[in-house]
């Protein structure tokens, strides 16, 4: 992997959303491999990862097409190519040919032809650009097939084949090498903490040897919404917690997971796990980031290979717990609010009620979107899609569903608990010159703390 990526592909940190600067040329192939080697690598990875769970899913599809009706890409375009389960077609083909119960017959009679490099190349758009792995398709499937999970597995194959959208590959590579996908290196982060600490007169402990709570951040927050760091510090200081940020494990975003590199996913998660173990933390708090929640709360222990020796909470769960038990007190916010549920925290993470409990304690007039909670529409920026420039037009199309949902709610204020959703909303707001601004749930709490 190249190491001159900083000069070849500098970061774009001034815009409404963070990515790398738009490349003049598209490099949607990584590495020097022949077409045959790419197909071989993709299929080998996909088949190797195949277990009973995925096999049951791929065997179960009845081609009813209902998943299309849940997918924002199909609903907004009426283009059948975006039917979620079809996005898995080359991988389903590989499974039937290589790993399924009748693989022998499929090969013998060539009932499922070999997948070609050209097909995989074409499928890149379907596996990455037009799937946020939001899991609405999983929720509608009458067979209960977890299509979003299978797309995640397909990405593993695509990564090994060197067929990842360029921007997503570049930020993932940067995360693996620098520790952060968006330039929030330990030095940059430390500088930011010092500046924020002085500017806001708030104590932000760094690199404590022993702490009860390890706080992690998203690089989107560090680089674009640094007030999240201040807000987290204010909340934890108000509670009198013994907490720390550690420069050896702070980055919660996991572009290894989003791009499809399992090893990088593990490397990124292990940094936080090791940091928490080193400082003997009892609790690891995850920031306002959707996929970070999935990567650590639900995949962290599996990456670790045993149960984690500490509890993992999303910041909204932590706030709900401490507002619920009365340790944290907030002023009433006399406003009508609508809440955007981040897919990986609510639908796929199960922490759907926590933000509502927090909003309840803030005394806001909650106007739920239709639908909301686990059935909510994705913002269109998840799964790494917001970083992919060529997906912009499609992303703006699906974002219009969100705009309508928010407008129809009639609420004065839009709140969410995911900084990736927030930057997708900011970008959409700028693109459509929309009058709604996305706010952070954490910052809303911190701004209204009763000391």
């Amino acid at each position, binding site marked *: 992997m190249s190491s001159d990526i900083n000069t070849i592909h500098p970061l774009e940190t001034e815009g409404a959303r963070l990515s790398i600067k738009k490349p003049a040329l598209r490099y949607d192939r990584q590495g020097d491999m022949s077409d045959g080697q790419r197909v071989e690598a993709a299929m080998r990875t996909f088949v190797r990862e195949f277990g009973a769970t995925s096999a*049951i899913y791929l065997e179960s599809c009845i*081609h009813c097409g209902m998943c299309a009706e849940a997918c924002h890409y199909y*609903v907004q375009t009426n283009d059948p190519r975006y*039917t979620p389960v079809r996005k898995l077609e080359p991988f389903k083909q590989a499974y039937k040919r290589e790993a399924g119960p009748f693989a022998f017959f499929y090969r013998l009679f060539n009932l499922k032809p070999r997948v070609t490099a050209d097909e995989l190349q074409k499928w890149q758009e379907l596996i990455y650009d037009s799937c946020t792995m939001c899991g609405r398709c999983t*929720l*509608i499937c009458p067979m209960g097939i977890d299509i979003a999970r299978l797309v995640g597995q397909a990405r593993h194959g695509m990564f090994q084949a060197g067929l990842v959208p360029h921007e997503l590959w570049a930020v993932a590579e940067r995360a693996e090498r620098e520790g952060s996908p968006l330039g929030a290196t330990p030095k940059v982060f430390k500088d930011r903490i010092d500046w924020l600490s002085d500017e806001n007169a708030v104590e932000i402990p760094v690199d404590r040897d022993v702490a009860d709570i390890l706080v992690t951040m998203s690089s989107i927050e560090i680089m674009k919404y640094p007030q999240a760091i201040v807000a987290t510090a204010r909340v934890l200081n108000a509670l009198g917690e013994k907490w720390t940020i550690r420069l050896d494990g702070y980055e919660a975003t996991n572009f290894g997971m989003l791009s499809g590199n399992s090893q990088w996913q593990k490397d990124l998660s292990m940094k936080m796990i090791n940091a928490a173990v080193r400082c003997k933390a009892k609790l690891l708090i995850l920031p306002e980031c959707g996929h970070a929640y999935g990567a650590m709360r639900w995949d962290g222990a*599996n990456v670790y290979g045993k*149960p984690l020796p500490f509890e993992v909470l999303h910041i909204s769960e932590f706030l709900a717990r401490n507002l619920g038990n009365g340790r944290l007190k907030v002023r009433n916010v006399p406003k009508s609010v609508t809440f955007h549920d981040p897919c990986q925290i609510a639908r796929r993470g199960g*922490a759907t009620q926590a933000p509502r409990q927090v909003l309840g304690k803030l005394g806001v007039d909650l106007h739920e979107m239709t639908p909301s909670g686990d059935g909510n529409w994705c913002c269109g920026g998840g799964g790494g899609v917001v970083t992919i420039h060529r997906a912009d037009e499609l992303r703006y199309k699906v974002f219009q569903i969100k705009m309508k949902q928010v407008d129809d709610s009639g609420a004065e204020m839009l709140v969410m608990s995911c900084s990736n959703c927030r930057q997708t909303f900011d970008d959409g707001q700028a693109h459509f010159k929309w009058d709604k601004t996305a706010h952070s749930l954490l910052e809303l709490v911190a701004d209204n703390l009763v000391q």
Partner: protein
Amino acid sequence: MNLLDFARGAVMKWSIAIFLFGMLWRLFGMLLLRRTHDYSEPRVHAAGLGALRSIIRRSWPRREFQARTAYGVTVSYVFHIGLAIIVFGFVPHILFIRNLVGVGWSGLPGGIIYFCAVITLVALVMAIVRRLTHPVLKLLSNFDDYFSWFVTAAPVVTGLLAAGHYGGRYEDLLAVHILSFELLLIWFPFGKLMHSVLLFLARGQTGAVYGRRGAST
């Protein structure tokens, strides 16, 4: 040996054998693949309940999806219920099942069965027309979809012809009906008809995963 004896004898034995062996082969082929252990701390210690809930709940789309799926769901329900009534309510079918497994029950009047068969056939035709015309279904469909439809519809058509004595000698019509059912049995383990078994596994495992996360199943 006439056609009816042939259908009732050797073909029946072989088709049941292929059906059973194929089912077991396909199920074990999947289930014997490795399973990874989930070490994450569950939010709710009720994976089994989640599985059960999902198996039941996925029989009907959630409220937010109902409007966009109403047509497909209704047509599917009609032919699934229709097929169940025909298979388990028609007296000759019950006798066949009793001979095979030793358990029987009382049947429904023939008139009701014929009515159900016609409704089922209409729903099956609506389903295939939709598959042939809907852009998403057209794109997704393969040989399995069309052949599975054929082997499902064929026994209904041949059964109606046999019951009404249309198009030939009763014995021949009955033989064709039995043969069409045997074709269904033979195809069953290899195509999408297996969903009648797989739905419990697929729904169950998703329900277990998301149940322990405390998410919607």
